[in-house]
């Protein structure tokens, strides 16, 4: 089980801020494919991965990073702080 979080327009497209996901995905990209296969709202959110960023356990990471041992995955658009 893994906590998956969504922020900004990713959260809006998916319709919820976080969920618990049962998965054996080896990498972030594998997890994304599993989610996209579920429902159109995931397809809409993950249509263009180049417009997205991912954090693993609150550290910025990459879509090809392994998920082993990760408890929290977050997807969001590029940050616009400051």
């Amino acid at each position, binding site marked *: 089980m893994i906590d998956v*979080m969504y922020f*900004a327009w990713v959260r809006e497209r998916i319709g919820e801020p976080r969920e618990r996901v049962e998965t054996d995905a080896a990498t972030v990209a594998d997890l994304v494919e599993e989610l996209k296969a579920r429902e159109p709202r995931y397809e809409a959110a993950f249509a263009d991965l180049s417009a997205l960023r991912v954090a693993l356990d*609150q550290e910025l990471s990459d879509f090809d990073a392994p998920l082993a041992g990760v408890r929290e995955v977050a997807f969001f658009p*590029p940050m*616009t*702080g400051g």
Partner: protein
Amino acid sequence: MPTIRVQSAPFSLGEESEGFAAGRTETGAVVTFTGLVRDTGGISRMEIEHYPGMTEKAIGDIVDEAMGRWTLDDALVIHRHGTLVPGDRIMMVATAARHRAAAFEAAEYLMDYLKSRAPFWKKEYGPDGAEWVAAKDEDEDALSRW
């Protein structure tokens, strides 16, 4: 010890500036930067979303990196989230160093990284509805100078 605060409440630029690095007689230069909500295209308000937990960690990492690159006597970052209106202060950074070059450079470094590496997202509400602020290429490019 640097100070980092992530909060929905407004902050007083006056009090923060007055109190920052006070009583440090090794400090010769203090720089502050304040970011404000601009009234562009008649926006009525802005909502700032963030990632609690990661936000503090990401800002902490950015501040640690700045303290290592420059010899800073002190550093401060305050960033708001929630609802803000034009004229409101979104965030501020402050740096204290012996000389002005370090204080200026460290403040610019903090700003460049907070813009693109701290998990905040802005949504603007204007006459044509609501829109997520898009990240600018120039903000990403700004990181390459460090």
